[in-house]
């Protein structure tokens, strides 16, 4: 087998006395669409944030392609910091709160990193950004300011911004949790189309129906450990763990 897109081994992370991650192992091959589910506080967002080192793990190994980081005691060495930056530009990260840069227009948000981090020519970046905005259905908002967009539109810009980095994998941290219910659909539609393109994706989500439908694999986290890991039909339809069964059935009842 080739080198996995993302490989995480033995990840531990505590905030003070609170052990949030207690040893997580996960491998994502190119083309995998993995949904991460679990109750709030199960550690799924922290796990996702540990991959680009937004949170520095206390111990464990994070590898993106051939780039490997092994932090010790929650501290990155000088070399790890350089690797972290490489890893970040190899990934696209989509936040729950969009986090667009308010002082840049929609287009400027999308071309910022390709030009200033990856050092690509401006004309090429602009052309590509326009295509990406078209893809997420926002080509008419090219010169708008983020504050003038709805939440759903902002999140679609954020996805275009993540795509502009030519990422090897995309990470979504609860991409629809901050949205009004009527805006969730437009964002899920974009993410679904990316899954159909065969992009490698890790998605932390509370949208169970969506997770079951788009992902090739579903992982259930409980108190900082992976409790269930398998094909979505199995995890949602016939889970081994009782906790997972309770969590899943609770969610589907509520959504009905």
């Amino acid at each position, binding site marked *: 087998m080739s080198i996995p897109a993302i490989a995480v081994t033995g990840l531990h992370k505590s905030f003070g006395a609170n052990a949030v991650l207690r040893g997580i192992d996960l491998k994502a091959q190119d083309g995998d669409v993995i949904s991460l589910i679990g109750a709030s506080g199960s550690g799924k967002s922290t796990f996702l944030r540990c991959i680009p080192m937004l949170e520095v793990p206390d111990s464990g190994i994070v590898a993106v392609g051939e780039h490997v980081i092994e932090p010790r005691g929650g501290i990155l060495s000088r070399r790890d910091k350089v690797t972290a930056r490489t890893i*970040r530009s190899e990934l696209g990260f989509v936040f729950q709160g969009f*986090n667009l840069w308010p002082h840049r227009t929609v287009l400027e948000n999308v071309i910022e990193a390709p030009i200033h981090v990856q050092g690509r020519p401006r004309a090429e970046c602009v052309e590509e950004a326009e295509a990406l905005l078209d893809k997420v259905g926002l080509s008419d908002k090219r010169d708008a300011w983020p504050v*003038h967009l709805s939440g759903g539109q902002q999140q679609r810009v954020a996805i275009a911004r993540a795509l502009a980095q030519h990422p090897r994998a995309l990470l979504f941290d609860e991409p629809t949790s901050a949205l009004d219910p009527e805006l969730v659909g437009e964002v899920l539609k974009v993410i679904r189309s990316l899954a159909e393109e065969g992009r490698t994706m890790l998605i932390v989500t509370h949208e169970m129906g969506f997770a079951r439908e788009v992902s090739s694999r579903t992982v259930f986290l409980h108190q900082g450990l992976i409790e269930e890991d398998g094909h979505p039909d199995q995890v949602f339809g016939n889970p081994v763990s009782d906790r997972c069964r309770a969590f899943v059935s609770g969610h589907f009842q509520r959504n009905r």
Partner: protein
Amino acid sequence: MDTEFLSGIFLKLLTGLPLTLNLTALSLLGGGMLALLLNLMRASRLGNTIAATYVFVFRGTPLLIQIFMIYYGLASFDAVRSSFLWPFLREPYWCGLLALALNDAAYTSEILRGGLRAVPQGAVEAGRVSGMSRIMVMRRIVLPLAMRQALPAYSNEIISMLKATALVSTITLLDVTGLARAEVSATYRAVEIFLCAAVIYLALSLLVTRGAGWLERRLSPYKFGVSA
């Protein structure tokens, strides 16, 4: 009204304008650099204490005392008199400029600090996650956002400094206020002369307000409901 007298006074006072503008610009420049330094110092614990004390002392005492302390006070130290700095510190111009810059730094550092605090954490994370280095995040995201946030308060600080330069007239400098004072002792027509000087300062501060407003609209059009 004696228009001939007034226009004569007005022209006379305008000759002090270069000094007033010079002191305003240079003290803002020096104070701004020191303010940035004070904010960088706040990263460490000791630096934070030093910066906080600096701000406390310079904001807690009148500028006039600071000017006198530097102009009259420092001269009473033999060490100062014999040092290489003496050629500067004996000149009222350099003493005034030094006091103004030190004073401005205390206020500007607080304005900058407020601006830095207002930068949304999410925007910073989005920068880091796109692979930017710490310096690049600072240069392309944190500082531009902090400056936009701090601009209205900073335009007030510019006006404050413009007004504060009038105090150097107490250490014999002939800025607009100093010249007005001299003319009053010569002619005893205090009302007309001081009003003339007031008009000059007023015009300058209105200019600053206008300029800052223009800059704010240019830098952050999204705050004014304009969709580019």
